[in-house]
């Protein structure tokens, strides 16, 4: 098969974007789910839930696209990574079942409202923690034998992955707080600002620890950041992260309504970039590169044609559905 164009970089960008979209979109609504558990009364809980009721399903769909996109563009990576995080994936999926059903069931099932309140909050928290475990296991790397995962199903569980699990809970909490500040008013918004500041402190601490710990467990990552001239080249990332952190803190403390959310997005973008810089060109860290794991050029080409057409369409109508539900949460729209 002759190949005119190497599609691997294009698919890397598309998959990278899909995963980032997932992290942002489901990130804020999982975060909203966790903050929901801190809400003082049913009225506040209704408002919080309704702020994401019309859009959570679309947000979670990016998880599917991320998973299937990985399978389609880098099947070898899919076949190694997913079995390696067998239990975090299991726990995440089951937690997502409960928090996803909580939307409809809580509203339809008055006697068991409290159960579904818990399902929503703990489901969101556990799913987030499990995703953080996956992230930690990913950064630590996987053992590969004959193109398949060679470790045990419990190898994911280390102090480092527990740390990234906790870090992601703070991170999603921060995104969720940003969303609530944008979508709500009064007491709910004030509480979101307070929780947002706590989450931001957690995020800052976690980023700091991960930045020190990762180069310690991986010489590859250490070389990437600390070799000359990389040190100079990549210096803007930590500097910008610090700056965005300060701006976000000020926005949370002040009266800005959009800025906390935007700041949180900025922090996620920079952290994501940091991970990408650390691991590129590995898709199965320290074992397989993007090119090792890529699907056949025909597969990538066939899917690319449709994706380039469909992705803008999806973004357009998804944007429209956000537009329909724009503005502050209204008491008469959504579950009542």
């Amino acid at each position, binding site marked *: 098969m002759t190949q005119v164009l190497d599609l691997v970089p294009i698919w890397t960008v598309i998959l990278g974007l899909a995963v980032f979209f997932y992290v942002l979109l489901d990130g804020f609504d999982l975060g909203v789910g966790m903050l929901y558990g801190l809400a003082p009364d049913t009225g506040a809980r209704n408002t919080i839930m309704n702020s994401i*009721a*019309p*859009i959570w*399903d*679309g947000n*979670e769909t990016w*998880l*599917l*696209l991320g*998973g*299937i996109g990985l*399978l*389609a563009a880098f*099947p*070898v990576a*899919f*076949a*190694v*990574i*997913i*079995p*390696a995080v*067998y*239990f975090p*994936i*299991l726990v995440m999926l*089951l937690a997502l*079942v*409960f928090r*996803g*059903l909580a*939307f*409809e*069931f809580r509203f*339809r*099932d*008055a006697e068991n409202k409290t159960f579904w309140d818990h399902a929503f909050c703990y489901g969101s928290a556990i799913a987030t923690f499990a995703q953080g475990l996956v992230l930690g296991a990913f950064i630590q790397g996987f053992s590969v034998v004959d*193109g*398949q*995962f*060679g*470790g045990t*199903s419990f190898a994911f569980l280390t102090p480092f992955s527990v740390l990234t699990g906790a870090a992601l809970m703070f991170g999603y909490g921060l995104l969720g707080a940003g969303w609530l500040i944008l979508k709500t008013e009064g007491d709910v918004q004030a509480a979101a600002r307070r929780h947002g500041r706590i989450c931001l402190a957690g995020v800052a601490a976690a980023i700091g620890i991960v930045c020190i710990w990762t180069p310690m467990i991986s010489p590859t990552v250490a070389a990437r950041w600390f070799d000359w001239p990389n040190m100079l080249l990549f210096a803007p990332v930590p500097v910008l992260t610090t700056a965005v952190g300060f701006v976000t803190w000020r926005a949370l403390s002040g009266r800005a309504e959009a800025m906390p959310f935007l700041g949180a997005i900025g922090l996620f973008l920079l952290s994501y970039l940091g991970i990408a810089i650390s691991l590129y060109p590995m898709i199965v860290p320290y074992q397989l590169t993007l090119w090792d794991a890529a*699907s*056949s050029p*025909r*597969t990538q080409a*066939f*899917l690319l044609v*449709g*994706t380039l057409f*469909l*992705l803008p369409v999806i973004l357009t*109508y*998804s944007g429209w*559905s956000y537009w*329909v*539900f724009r503005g502050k949460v209204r008491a*008469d*729209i959504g579950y009542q």
Partner: protein
Amino acid sequence: MSFDPVLLSRIQFAWVIGWHILLPAFTVGAASFIAVVEGLALKTGHEVYVRISTFWIKIFAIAFGMGVVTGIIMPFQFGTNWSRFASAGANVLSPLFAYEGLTAFFLEAAFLGVLLFGRKLVPPWAHFVAAVMVALGTLFSSFWILSANSWMQTPAGYEIINGQFYPKDWIEVIFNPSFPYRLAHTVIAFFTTTGFVVLGVGAYLLRRGRSVAESRTMLSMALWMLTVLVPLQIVVGDLHGLNTRDHQPAKLAAIEARWDTARRVPLTLFAVPDDKEGRNKYAIEIPWLGSLILTHDLDGQVKGLKDFPADQRPPVAIPFFAFRAMVGCAGVMFLLVVAGAWLRWRGRLYDTPLYLRLCQYGIPLGFIAVIAGWFVTEVGRQPWTIYGLLRTAHSVSPSLTGLDVTLSLLGYMAVYLLIYPWGLILMLRLVRRGPMETPEADAAVEAGRPAGPVLAPAIAVAKGKTL
């Protein structure tokens, strides 16, 4: 623990997909039904249609929500438990899954929000468009996922290099030999399932004398559709069977519990197949009918299982009995439809209590047939994941131990056994309330007043009035 991870992974996959498929079996048809009713509401402005639509949207929302959360679990199964299948087949199969996501899931998800919550926020035509988009999404989804499943049953348009499958011709991959039949058979099955749910619910409401206009409309619409689809399904099912005979003869032999290749074979109505001895016990057979049905020729030859090496035969009992359950359901459905058509012709469709009661009992028929059919086709294609090419035993993730899969299977079992009955109860509760009412309006309707206050604005908006 010495449990076999392959067997446990198979049970786990059967468990999560078996429960999942019950939801699209209803929601695919329900989405189209809602779109049609929304269209009628928009065109005629009759409140009856708005109330029917609002009623079914509530039930649909629960089923669809369950479908989403159980559906997200599915693709991850390929990675967690079937990673060798995933890496061998991904070059060919993954674009089909990806196109399902790109064309269907986003469409459904984005427009579902508007369908559920947007009636007051968008103009009536846009609400109708949202309903149509959700329905289209469910159909696109069926298209792609059944294409992928069919390719695993009757692979085409591929080449194998070093144990990996590579695509050669995408049209042949997508429109592989069993796909058109499977797609038609399955989508009709889904519409039929929804049809019997709507028919049964309409009959139930009518028997209770509630929401008479709405339930009559439901009953009538469902029955018209079923009058066309049930006979059509019997024809399509027969064609699908002929296709299976050509491409998966071992599966057909298992379905019929036929051990020896022969002409003028009988139709086995009942038997206890014995895999070890390779024969049937206690068989009840009708001479020649087997050849006639399976080959459309009294003298036709039907292949037997003994033509295949023992390690390439599917288990016999499950496809054999599941097939009879499915066909049995079809028979009952056909009788219900014929009786309904006759009653309609006599003008007694709405006031024959026995018939209404039978329709109500008929609600599970479609679900039973779908799940039975699923077992026929999936167990019947064993021991392969990619038919004739990749064995199930060689598809499983190598890192998994019996303990791993035992734990995950127990997790899935516990959660599904909790949420399915729960969801069913909530849906039944909505059915019991009927189309007129909303939670807030219970008391008002008990007192015999018409439309509840909460529904009134929705009706006004749907009729194009501003609030």
